[in-house]
């Protein structure tokens, strides 16, 4: 059988060869069934959010959702390398899904996972990736209710591609277009960690650092905020970093934003890597941060709530919203200058999420 390339019984002093994914693992038969029952299902503790869940292995799942507005998001994850300092593609996919829901003000309820794996991919690495993904879903009480597994030939894709769809429920949906004049802008932690950690991890740049990606689930942090504070607008600054996120908020809200550079939390290492490569840390991706607007009356309370959490302990007020220069973001620089913070033309680095 081509499915599991096992070395059991093979002669020689060679170490036991790793089990690897074969074409049969995606072929819908007995081999795939074993992959599901032995390697996938047991990792995910929450497997239903309604009458028909993952265990039914039916054509779909059914959900019984609590009251509120249903929010749906979907994302394909193609990060390179698959294992990076601070996480892996499994953790990234789960956090990306949860965070997109959280940034809409929605509590994550359920999700689906479609995975495409390259033939020959080591099974133990796939186990690690799935465990990372499952861990985040467990922490955020998100059920995995449906999934799909496909295998593509060697060289037809780079390792693993994970696509997740998330379903959440919001009591009040928070848009990224609703910033109001007078709002105060906060960020929940240091920016640019993910983008710069990935750059530092890529061999071609010959850098050594102990920089870690910030990849983390924003729920329940956002939930705690929502319980006490009215968030007017929110976004998670992934590709294009803080610069892209705030520009999008300013454009969609047709409102002007002023940022104070010296208040924006950026780790010294992130700044060092960025300076070395001529990149702007404000354009580097985050995977565990949110940028949000609140009324001035709520700003201190929001900051207190964030500061009492591990994820939000470096949260900061970074700017304010006005009617001056609608659609534009003005950066008040550390040395006292001013410039526009432009929308990046594109993320300087491909395949970061």
């Amino acid at each position, binding site marked *: 059988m081509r499915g599991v390339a096992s070395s059991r019984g093979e002669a020689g002093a060679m170490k036991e060869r790793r089990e690897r994914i074969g074409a049969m693992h995606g072929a819908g038969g007995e081999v795939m069934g074993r992959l599901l029952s032995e390697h996938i299902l047991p990792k995910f503790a929450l497997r239903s959010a309604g009458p028909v869940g993952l265990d039914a292995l039916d054509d779909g799942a059914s959900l019984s959702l609590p009251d509120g507005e249903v929010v749906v998001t979907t994302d394909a994850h193609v990060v390179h390398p698959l294992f990076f300092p601070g996480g892996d593609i499994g953790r990234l996919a789960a956090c990306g899904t949860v965070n997109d829901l959280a940034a809409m003000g929605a509590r994550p309820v359920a999700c689906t996972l479609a995975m495409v794996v390259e033939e020959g991919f080591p099974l133990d690495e796939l186990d690690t990736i799935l465990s990372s993904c499952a861990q985040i879903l467990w922490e955020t009480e998100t059920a995995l209710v449906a999934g799909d597994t496909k295998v593509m030939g060697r060289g037809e894709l780079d390792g693993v591609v994970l696509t997740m769809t998330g379903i959440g429920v919001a009591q009040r949906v928070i848009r990224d277009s609703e910033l109001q004049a007078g709002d105060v802008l906060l960020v929940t932690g240091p920016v640019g960690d993910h983008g710069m950690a990935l750059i530092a991890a890529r061999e071609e740049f010959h850098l050594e650092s102990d920089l870690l990606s910030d990849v983390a689930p924003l729920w329940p942090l956002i939930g705690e905020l929502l319980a006490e504070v009215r968030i007017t607008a929110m976004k998670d600054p992934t590709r294009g970093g803080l610069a892209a996120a705030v520009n999008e908020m300013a454009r969609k809200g047709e409102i002007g934003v002023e940022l104070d550079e010296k208040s924006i939390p950026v780790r010294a290492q992130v700044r060092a890597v960025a300076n070395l490569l001529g990149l702007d840390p404000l354009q580097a991706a985050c995977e565990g941060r949110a940028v949000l607007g609140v009324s001035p009356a709520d700003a201190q309370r929001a900051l207190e709530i964030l500061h009492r959490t591990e994820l939000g302990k470096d949260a900061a007020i970074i700017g304010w919203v006005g009617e001056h220069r609608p659609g534009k973001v003005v950066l008040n620089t550390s*040395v006292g200058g001013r410039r526009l913070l432009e929308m990046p033309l594109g993320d300087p680095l491909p395949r970061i999420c």
Partner: protein
Amino acid sequence: MKADQFALRDPLRGQALARALQRLAPERPVRIVHVCGTHEITISEHGLRHVLPEGVSVLEGPGCPVCVTSTVDLDRAVRLAEQGVAVCTFGDMMRVPGSRKTLDEARALGAPVHTVLSAADAVGLARKNPAQDVVFFAVGFETTAPGTAAVLLDDPPGNFSVLCSHKLIPPAVQKLVNMPGTGLDGLLAPGHVSTVIGAGAYAGLAGEHCIPVVVGGFEPLDVLYALLLLLRQVADGRAQVENAYPRAVSWEGNRQAQNLLATAFRVSDAKWRGIGEIPCSGLAVRAELSRFDAALKYDVPAVEGQEVVPGCRCADVLVARAVPSDCPLFGGECTPLTPVGPCMVGAEGACAVWHRHGERPAL
């Protein structure tokens, strides 16, 4: 968490310099010119123009080597590549529009064009491929020219030659002083170039033309400090050369680099894009090394081409008569993705820098 831990970006020192600068607000408009793309990047990225007192403007002159490379030279490089000669040059040069096409477009059509990081890389390519003629299209000021000189004097292989478009900064500044409409009140002299030529190279400018000159470094506080010294000279009515970048620049400069330049090159007249011919402002390969001079080795005629596209104000930007946002094409028809003029292509071109770093005269 401290927002910035680099002493040369320290907010408190920045504020102190800003206050000192504000006290030097001039009674009449003062125009300071710099001639260095890296200065423009620092000024724009940190929004330093907004720290200056009212009436003081800082403009970029011919400070981007890629931008001032004449289409005559660029067209020649394209023609050489089209004839099958491997043309090597810096990445910045690849997308600069010539009068017919860019080097990048020539490459897309199959011409052998290579991006290199140094002249030595081009020599390496020539040694590895002895049957292939290799030309290094040499652009840049006194900063990059010593690298070209070094390979010319290090017995390069016979299939290697140089298409020399190196230019000199002091004659260009001299030309700017004499041009109508530039009204130069002070020069922020380029740190990189000055490490090679030395602060003393500007003595004539200060002495004969009564232009205050201050050599500046590239961190925001370096630039603010240099501007402070310039405004003090203007306020005092002095014109002398001061060095605000002594940690890198000496009065004499780098003698070894100067010797390399003098041995490999002779000073020649040169054509600057958007400015025209400037006497004694270029470097040409010396007669003793003529076998490595691509202009003599190959029969590629120098044809006058269109230097600037109609409507594009690069020519005014390059002589500090206009800032990028004065150009009607800036940010609309002309962006880094769809550059019309050379100043939007080079990473150090004023228009590209303004576009990338969101620099605007009023915010």
